[in-house]
């Protein structure tokens, strides 16, 4: 089984690849998409058609729209193809990274207690924040300044009006590939937990 994986940015696509390699290890990656950013919503119905012939794993951010609404507005009532694995991470894909509390804390050298854990969102066990930022911005603006590593601070602190630190991917990708522990993270993130369950079903 060869997956087409679809994610808005490099970090998101690496999260998908990491999950596939861990929970669906016989599968390979056929293609990484989209060819350029911000195209997922525009292309999603085409991806859904493509999923008649290829397994497709799409991971997207919540962007303030709850998943059922998002599916309705994106898919426009189309039936989601059986081979379409469409997952919405709570808030942002980065929340799945943060949910590996100790892994994140050790790797980025940020004290454990600084990282919010299992804050309540509805009745779900989710990492969520009563703050005005998205997860990735919360990481960069609130957590990173508290890191004991100068290089983490350098790479992840956004410069004037930038949305990401100047070496955001270089900081995140090694963590995702080498250190992130989805088994730990799923205990703190029900959206990740459900995604893993679906992936396991999908691959069995």
């Amino acid at each position, binding site marked *: 089984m060869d997956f087409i994986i679809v994610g808005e940015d*490099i970090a998101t696509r690496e999260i998908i690849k990491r999950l596939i390699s861990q929970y669906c290890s016989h599968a390979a990656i056929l*293609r990484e998409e989209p060819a350029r950013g911000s195209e997922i919503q525009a*292309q999603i119905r085409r991806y859904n058609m493509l999923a008649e012939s290829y397994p497709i794993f799409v991971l997207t951010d919540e962007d303030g729209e709850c998943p059922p609404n998002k599916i309705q507005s994106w898919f426009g009532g189309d039936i989601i193809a059986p081979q379409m694995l469409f997952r919405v991470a709570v808030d942002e894909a980065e929340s799945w990274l943060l949910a590996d509390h100790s892994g994140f804390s050790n790797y980025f050298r940020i004290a454990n207690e600084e990282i919010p854990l299992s804050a309540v969102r509805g009745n779900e066990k989710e990492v969520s924040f009563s703050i005005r930022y998205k997860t990735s911005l919360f990481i960069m603006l609130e957590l990173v300044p508290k890191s004991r590593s100068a290089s983490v601070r350098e790479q992840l602190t956004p410069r004037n009006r930038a949305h990401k630190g100047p070496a955001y991917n270089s900081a995140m990708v090694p963590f995702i*590939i080498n250190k992130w522990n989805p088994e730990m993270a799923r205990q703190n993130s029900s959206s990740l937990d459900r995604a893993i369950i679906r992936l396991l079903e999908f691959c069995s």
Partner: protein
Amino acid sequence: MLMTKIILKNWKNFQDLELPFRERAFIVGPNASGKSNLLDAIRFMRDIVKQAGGFQYAVARRGGVAKIRCLSARQDSNATLEIHLSHSFSDVHPEWQYRLSFRHAGGGIRRSEGLILEEVICKQGEIIGERHNTDSIEEDDWKFTLLEQPVSNKKFREIYDFFKDIQYLHVVPQLIREADSYVLTSGREDFYGRNLLEAMAKKNANTRESYFNRINQFLKIAVPQLEEMKFVSDQKTGIPHLQATYKHWRAKGAKQQEKQFSDGTLRLVGFLWAILDGSGLLLLEEPELYLHSAIIKQMAEYIARFQRKRDKSLRQVFITTHSYELLDNQGIGSDELIVLRTDSESTQAQIGSEVKEIRDYLDKGFSPAEAVIPYVAPKQVEQLSLLKED
């Protein structure tokens, strides 16, 4: 005349390649996969027939047979090139087939040269000229092609003319701008650098003016502030120049010559000139370089419009590109896409319509860019994020 097929064996990146061509070819692939080498195989034929050219010239210019041969070639060390020409894409038999096979000769104290092993010319499927050097005799006869000699190519002058009319454009703005570049490029017919101006200078004045009218229509839209682009010759030295008038605060506008032009303006002028001038096969190397994405988006269509010539003949255009914008055009046919992918041995080239994955994407409404760019993306590019700083 149209180039309908190319076959390469042991040729640079390609161990074994066979590709049909259509009106346009958009050649896409990762870095160093052989996009330029594919165009170069065609330019090799042009080097054989051009003035002061010839087979030995074409070989030497590429650094000898050793540099032309496929790196992964082992026993079979002959390089072979075959090209089919037709009047239409639907011809059952190509009007012309030309095949040339050669290997390295000489070495030691003798100059290293190319040695022809086989040369075959067919018309409508029938052989009208052939030579086979079965014993690899190293005599002078086997150092020149029939094609390059006016006496021996009489019966197939059409092939000769086709290759002679091929144009290649890869404007390097730095070379046009630098006065010294004249030395570097003089003698080369290709539109490298300075030769763009030479080509313009050689053109009949009326034709040149009508081309410049077209070019100006385009530039006025594409280059803000540019009022008019003109071709001028220095009155004292006769050296050709481009001169542009810009709308500025000055009443009469400010004049600039090519030395002051931006890289993008020079590339654009070169692109437009190449599209307008000539009727032979046009080879374009990454025409998107230095240009704004809004302009690149229009290129595929602009080419399609101007490839039909006044006399209704079709001028083929082959393009190498890395550009999403260039390929983001629903008017590009899947048989106009050529995708290159490398494996450990060599490069595989396929027509888009022959790749199921690409067909599936196009059938579901994705643009050629969406279908093709991820297909040829380097694998594991995320490893770049893992590189250490020291």
